[in-house]
Every structure is written in C-alpha cells, then in structure tokens.
C-alpha cells in the first residue's frame, strides 16, 4: 500500500517544479522582450526626457 503513494508525492513535486519553472521563464522572457522593445525605440531616436539629450542632429520633440 505504501509504495503506491509514490505517484502522489511525485505528482505534487513534479507539478511544483513545472509551474515554478514556467513562472520563472515567463518573467525572464517578458523582461527580455521589454528590454528589446526599449532598445528598438531608442534606436529610432525616442528617449525619455530624463535619460539625457539625443545625439546631435536629432530634432527636438
């Protein structure tokens, strides 16, 4: 009877690993996507006012 319970313990720990790894991956990938979007916007010359003046030759907003 005892040995049958292994599947339950494995399911609990397995689901934990899957959900937490998925959560971690989602947060990291989302961060990477945002940073890429920011880099793309910066390449187009768009900057936040507090991040300093754009390079010379750019029109002011």
């Amino acid at each position, binding site marked *: 009877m005892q040995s049958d319970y292994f599947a339950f313990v494995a399911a609990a*720990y397995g*689901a934990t690993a899957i959900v937490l790894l998925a*959560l971690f991956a989602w947060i990291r990938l989302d*961060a990477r996507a*945002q*940073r890429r979007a920011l880099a793309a916007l910066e390449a187009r010359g768009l900057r936040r006012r507090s991040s300093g003046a754009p390079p010379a030759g750019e029109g002011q*907003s």
Partner: protein
Amino acid sequence: MSDLSLSKPSRFAILANPTRFLELSGRLQPWLYGFAALLLAAGLVLGFLAPEDYQQGRTVRIMFIHVPFAWLAMMAWTVMSASALGTLVWRHPIADVSIKAAAPIGAAFTFLCLFTGSVWGRPMWGTWWVWDARLTSVFVLFIMYLGLIALSRAEEEPGRNARAAAVLVLVGFVNLPIIKFSVDWWNTLHQPASVLRADGPTLDPAFLWPLLVCAAGFTTLFFALHLNAMRTEILRRRVFALQRLAARRAEAA
C-alpha cells in the same frame, strides 16, 4: 512652509523614483535568487531525509511544499494589501507596479497549494476535493487572484486601473482571516493548525525543520520573482510611454 530641502528623503520616497528602484533592485535580485536556491536545496534534502510518518508514510513529504504554498498564497495577498495602501493613501508610484507584479505569482502559489493538497488528500482522505470551509475559502482566494489579474490587464494604458485594483485587493483581504480560522470556526475535513497555534507547533522537529526551511526558501523565491516582475513592469510602462510618444510624433509629422 518648512524647508524641505534640508530633510533627508525617506527610504520609500527614494524607492518612488523608478530609475533608482531599478538600480537598487538590480543589485539585490541575484542575491535573492541565489539565497532562495540554497534554501530550497537544503529544504529538499532535509525533506527527503525526514522519516516516513507512521500513519501517512511518504505522503507526509507533500506537507513540506503544500504548507509553504498555503502560507505564501496568503502572504502574497498581504504584500499586495500593503501595496494597495501605498496606492490609495500615499499615491506611491511603484505601489501599483507591485500589485500587478505580485498577482500572477500569488495565483501560481495558490494553485500549487490547491493541487498539492488535492494530491495529498486522495490517498489520505480518500477524496481529491471536499467543499469544506478551508478548501473553499482558499479556492475563493484563487478566483480573486484571477479576477485581479484580469482587472489589472483590462486597460490598454498600464496603471489606469491602479485605484480599482487597490480597492479590490483591500476588500479581498477579509478572506485571509477567514482562511486562517476556517478550521476553528467550521467543522472541516482539513485538520486544524499544527504550526501557528497558541500553544506552539505540534510537529516533531524532524518534520518541522524541513517545513520551515522550505517555507523560508519559497518565501525568498517569491520575493525574487516579485522583484523581477516589478522591474519588468516598470520597463513595460516605459515602452508604453515611448510608443505613445512615437505615435504622437508620427501624427504631428
């Protein structure tokens, strides 16, 4: 009017500046993840070295993850409630970011609490689920998390729903004492408290130590994930602001 320039800004005021927050949190984050990994590794080892329970056998090991998840499900909502006060009372700009970032993480831990509990209940209670006060109130907490996630993503512009989300979080906080005391107030299949009780824990140290180390590990992991998600949310709001700026420029040109 007092001379404000002479007073040192409080720690919360410093954190209100998103750039400063990104700087500080960026340095703290790897330490949180590292510390969480260490604690969880230690907790896992202790858990598998723990003896089998005379009644439950090896299913007692589910306790080392199920109980921390339950605690964290409630702790996450408490963190969001403190942030909600930050939004409503102090209008702290990072408070709404905190709520939006914490909700999916809290929901994940609540789901895992319900899942591991169910998988533990099947062999021990003979059922996957029962609508007793403890299980029902935690299920309600899970639904509230989902509602909050939906609300904070309803608006195109991030931060628009800050006040509504904050109110929902504070109203939902009433569920937490209900969850905690449900096993005392109602006749539940779920057993009463074994750790956080007036007379102290009833668990043998062989089980209590793995439980506490795992709890500490998962708590640190929660804060690491939360910090990470907050940083991402700040970046997302910057992207949104710059995209709107780009759209305005395109229109003006």
